[in-house]
């Protein structure tokens, strides 16, 4: 668990490097100097402000960068009476404010500079960025992300303790339109998100999501009048029901055969209707009850047990080798 937690955190940092914009982590209040500024003055600014470099601006235009290295060189060669214009690095490499932080990371690894001036799309100086700014920005973003995540997770996962009753049930209902292939999976996506927020273990979330999605697609493909999905959630169990008043299944045993399908050709072309849906739902579930009558509709109930002791049913069935 430690390892996977670490891997998750690491992936998060990588994601943030791509998500965060340079403008979000850079220092905005930039102190600038002009080419005519004496180096002595620069030395004082760097010392009192505890910074290591300054952009050089002439008539609002970025013309160079002067750093603590330039000051050291000037001290060594006794040239502290020189002006910034004489000792600065001209035409500095810049970064653009609305680019992702990964650009800055790449620049720091490509060049040996300690800082890059940041400009907007019109070329105007808007900030400065150091490796320290990136580290601080990332830490802040991780903390924020973590806190928001924890808060929403805590709130949702404690719903059963926070609301006192003899038995609390959380009921999520989603209407499914017939033939609405383009929106197929939206209900499943929302159920998956809800379960994650409720702190359901990830492996169970994946099983429920796959079963829900298969059931949702079945309604979209087969039930000419649509139907609905209901997820009933208790602390120890999730019950998923997929109900429609469509054409029904005349022969359930046949429908449970892997590869048996009545889906039309256009659905098959879209990658569905291969006759694996019900088989897969049963595989994901701890328990599956399928009731259907030709012309009357279909009622599918699938149970997932969240407590280890309530799961024995699934294990036994697996060991017995019975499958749909």
């Amino acid at each position: 668990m430690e390892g996977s937690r670490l891997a998750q955190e690491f992936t998060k940092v990588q994601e943030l490097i791509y998500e965060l914009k340079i403008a979000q982590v850079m220092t905005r209040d930039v102190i600038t100097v002009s080419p005519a500024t004496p180096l002595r003055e620069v030395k004082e600014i760097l010392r009192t402000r505890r910074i290591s470099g300054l952009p050089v601006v002439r008539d609002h235009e970025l013309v160079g960068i002067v750093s603590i290295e330039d000051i050291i060189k000037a001290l060594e060669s006794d040239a502290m009476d020189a002006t910034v214009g004489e000792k600065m690095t001209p035409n500095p490499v810049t970064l653009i404010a609305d680019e992702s932080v990964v650009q800055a990371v790449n620049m720091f690894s490509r060049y040996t500079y300690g800082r890059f001036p940041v400009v907007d799309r019109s070329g105007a100086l808007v900030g400065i960025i150091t490796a320290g700014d990136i580290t601080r920005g990332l830490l802040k973003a991780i903390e924020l992300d973590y806190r928001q995540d924890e808060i929403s997770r805590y709130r949702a996962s404690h719903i059963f303790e926070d609301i006192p009753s003899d038995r609390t049930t959380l009921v999520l209902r989603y209407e499914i339109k017939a033939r609405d292939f383009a929106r197929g999976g939206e209900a499943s996506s929302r159920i998956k998100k809800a379960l994650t927020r409720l702190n359901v273990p990830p492996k169970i979330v994946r099983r429920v999501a796959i079963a829900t999605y298969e059931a949702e697609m079945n309604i979209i493909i087969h039930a000419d009048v649509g139907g609905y999905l209901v997820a009933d959630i208790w602390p120890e169990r999730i019950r998923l029901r997929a109900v429609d008043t469509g054409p029904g299944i005349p022969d359930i045993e046949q429908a449970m055969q892997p590869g048996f399908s009545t889906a039309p050709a256009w659905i098959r072309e879209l990658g569905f209707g291969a006759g694996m849906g019900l088989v897969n739902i049963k595989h994901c579930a701890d328990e599956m009850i399928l009731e259907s009558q030709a012309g009357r509709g279909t009622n599918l109930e699938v149970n997932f047990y969240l407590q280890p002791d309530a799961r024995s049913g699934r294990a036994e069935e697996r060991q017995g080798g019975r499958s749909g």
Partner: protein
Amino acid sequence: MKLREILPLIEGELLSGNANLDLEVEMGCGADLMSDVLAFTHAGTLLVTGLTNPQVVRTAEMAEIAAIVFVRGKRPPEETIALAEEKGIPLLFSPHTMFEVCGRLYQAGMHGCGRFDL
């Protein structure tokens, strides 16, 4: 294997924005049937497919597929890319066939998802 290592192997290109090319994928699955993807993969799998409709991304979301490679030179429609970006699933493209892409990845050390008894 990282996505950035996969791209040159399949002579591929990245189709979605803001993707993390350092993402590690351990195993792959080649399929045009989405039910097969739902039944025969593990979380974190790389999906190689010739289908490009948005349901491929939905399937990937449910099955927790790490990234998708579209093969045979097929480019997905805008809505597929938009959904993938929303869900944070990187989309890759290869001009080669499914067999060729799977073969190159396998040869480079990527494995399948193992056997499943349904």
